[in-house]
């Protein structure tokens, strides 16, 4: 018996889940279980109550609306991976999701679980930062929206109150024909990235960049938008030598050190991966135009 003792609750509605969170002390939400279950097995967390969201109705959906894609919190990563709508409207996410864990973990793991667990190197977290996503959070006084930029408040700590739960994330879609790439460096396929780069660009008919989003994951407690590089790219033509100069500025970003790599190694990756991703994104624009 590996997990510590807890009481188990499996509500059927969001309102009931919120009610449980409001009335119970030291409760933990269980979504896909691909992070919480290892933490329970190793007794890193000792909740008195586990509130299982797997039987809550209405939290699993992928809904395209005007210019955005709304994804329910309990949507399995597998369903995102095989979604035609995601591939068409949000190809960055489709590319990133294939680098999230393995088939066995994507079959269970969820969008909301990944966003709330908020691992600094998690692919979906970087995608949410790259696309300026908004998350919807339900509490006892109704729902509220949080811009993803304000969602991570500290290392693995989302801006959610103990009696709230994330119900959906909304991703603004870029126009058809944009360039995108999600490139990561990991020790093995399916591992968390040491550093990842999520890139989106648009180009005018002369190949000059008109809009850019560059996000680095794995560097610090939350994904970093490289806003200076995003500004420098505007008006540029994607070309390797120029990109080397532009991306060199990313070496000065703060980076964590851990068993996998020292800070300097991550800073080196921060100069390399966005360049590779930008070139891939540019080639995709060209491929679509050819």
């Amino acid at each position, binding site marked *: 018996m590996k997990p510590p003792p807890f009481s188990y609750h499996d509500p059927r509605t969001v309102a009931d889940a919120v009610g449980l969170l409001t009335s119970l002390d030291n409760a933990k939400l269980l979504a896909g279980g691909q992070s919480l279950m290892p933490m329970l097995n190793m007794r890193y967390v000792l909740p008195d109550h586990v509130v*299982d969201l797997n039987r809550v109705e209405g939290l699993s959906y992928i809904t395209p609306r005007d210019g955005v894609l709304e994804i329910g919190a309990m949507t399995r990563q597998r369903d995102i991976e095989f979604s035609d709508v995601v591939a068409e409207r949000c190809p960055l996410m489709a590319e990133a999701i294939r680098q999230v864990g393995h088939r066995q973990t994507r079959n269970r793991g969820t969008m909301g679980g990944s966003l709330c667990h908020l691992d600094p190197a998690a692919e979906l977290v970087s995608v949410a930062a790259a696309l300026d996503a908004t998350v919807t959070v339900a509490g006892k006084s109704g729902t509220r929206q949080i811009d993803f930029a304000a969602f991570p408040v500290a290392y693995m700590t989302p801006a959610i109150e103990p009696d709230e739960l994330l119900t959906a994330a909304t991703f603004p879609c870029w126009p058809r024909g944009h360039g995108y790439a999600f490139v990561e460096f990991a020790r093995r396929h399916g591992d968390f990235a040491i550093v990842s780069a999520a890139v989106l660009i648009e180009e005018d008919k002369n190949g000059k960049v008109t809009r850019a989003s560059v996000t680095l994951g794995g560097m610090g407690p939350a994904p970093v938008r490289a806003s200076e590089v995003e500004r420098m790219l505007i008006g540029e033509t994607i070309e390797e030598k120029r990109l080397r100069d532009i991306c060199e500025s990313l070496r000065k970003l703060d980076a964590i050190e851990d068993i996998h790599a020292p800070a300097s190694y991550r800073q080196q990756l921060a100069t390399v991966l966005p360049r590779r991703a930008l070139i891939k994104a540019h080639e995709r624009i060209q491929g679509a135009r050819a």
Partner: protein
Amino acid sequence: MSDTRQIAVTVNGTRYQETVPVRVTLADFLRHQLGLTGTHLGCEHGVCGACTILLDGRSARSCLMLAVQADGHDILTVEGIAPNADTLHPLQEAFRDNHGLQCGFCTPGILTTLIELLRDNPDPTEEEVRIGISGNLCRCTGYQNIVIAALDAAKRLRGSSGASRP
């Protein structure tokens, strides 16, 4: 706290009604309560893949689920792969013929993973097989014969189902 729940699960076609402590993992439930010790536990935190089972036809790590979450669901473990006690499944035959296992510890998880993979993708490339089993650690084989066995199994299964190759 000794919270328990009644659950009803179907494992390898057999229906079970059991009372489980809520904190018991599905893996421990299968092994200790149902005696189905074919599902192996390596790391118990979702890294090694040895405990992979199919939940409603989809592979999942049984160490990362609570038994109570399986209530109402259908589970396939390695014991349920062969059609009967005297006949191996073509996937198992391919593993035997190609030396796809040495110590055998990882094999149950690899077989269940490949059952799903070959069902969804009957004619995988070598790379697709390698990515498909990337969530399963094997410390003996270096994966070479596992990949060979998986590709051989794919061929046997395509032949047995009479499906035409593209």
